[in-house]
């Protein structure tokens, strides 16, 4: 060896080092709205103990977090809040959609429930189940870590190049009425949600 390396020094790529650090200390932001929130609590508490995977530092302030866990159904009134929280989280950030309701609306195919949060915010990982068992959530966290290690870069390039996940597009209202063969209701103005910023 021409150049001697001192002991306890190893060489790696900066990307890999960043990924290693990021993936092993994910700080989840528990956006717990319903039943899945209780399973999220169960995951964090005694028997399942998510601390074993370095993701136990639940911070309820989005500014401090890098992993959004949407646990539970998101309804019309809550969606602007969710979008605001997603915008407030600093890069790099990831999102786990936990439970059938957050993924697709689940059993709540009703007027008020958003049919999958991926229609309105980007989602990296889907956890099925109603609610998913804690083991399943832990598995999702491990998969998330794998994903970060595989695709992450120091400067967050993957967020620029990754194809934008759009999800299903919102229906046109007239098309929706045609699909359901509904008669337009007299004098109905469609609900206009408050705009973001």
């Amino acid at each position, binding site marked *: 060896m021409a150049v001697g390396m001192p002991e306890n020094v190893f060489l790696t790529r900066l990307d890999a080092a960043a990924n290693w650090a990021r993936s092993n200390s994910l700080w989840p932001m528990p956006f717990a709205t319903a039943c899945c929130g209780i399973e999220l609590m169960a995951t964090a508490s005694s028997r399942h103990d998510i601390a074993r995977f370095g993701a136990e530092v639940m911070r309820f302030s989005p500014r401090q977090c890098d992993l959004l866990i949407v646990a539970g159904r998101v309804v019309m009134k809550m969606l602007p809040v969710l979008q605001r929280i997603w915008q407030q989280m600093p890069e790099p950030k990831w999102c786990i959609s936990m439970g059938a309701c957050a993924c697709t609306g689940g059993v709540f195919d009703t*007027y008020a429930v958003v049919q999958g949060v991926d229609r309105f915010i980007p989602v990296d990982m889907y956890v099925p189940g109603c609610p998913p068992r804690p083991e399943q959530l832990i598995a999702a966290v491990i998969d998330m870590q794998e994903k970060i290690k595989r695709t992450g870069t120091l400067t967050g390039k993957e967020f620029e190049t990754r194809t934008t996940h*759009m999800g299903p597009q919102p229906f046109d209202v007239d098309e*929706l009425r045609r699909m359901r063969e509904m008669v337009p209701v007299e004098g109905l103005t469609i609900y206009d949600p408050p705009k973001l910023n």
Partner: protein
Amino acid sequence: MVEANTTVADLRTQFGNELTESSFRDNHRVHVPPEKALDVLTWLKEQRGFDMLVDITAVDYLEYPDATDRFHVIYLLLNMTTKERLIVKVPVNLPDAALPSVVPLWKGADWMEREVYDMFGIDFIGHPDLRRILMPEEFTTFPLRKDYPLKGFGERHNFPVLTRAES
């Protein structure tokens, strides 16, 4: 339940015979015309000791077989001393679906009436703060009416989409 029957009998001597009575299982119901509703409820609370209002709800009878009125507002009353229950049903019809508020009698009626207003569009005259409670303020229809479909008119799809590039 002999007591319930005497209550209803007393009600009828007090307020006239248009109050009809029915019962099913252990539920005793009295049907009251809307203009007498507040008087009957006041009398029940003050003379008969129905000091707890268990619930206020409404039913939309649009598609119900043989229904004559569009809505019924239903007051579930409970006497805490004798544990006697009584259901008061008041018919309400469009276009001006309105009833006097019972918040002065039972403070617990506050949110219950707001919910009925939110879900059915029935006004409660004299309510201190009648706003939408469950649905967003901007919402224009009343979801629990029978002419509103289960899946709504597409309101749930009507939001801006955030993408990776934007956020």
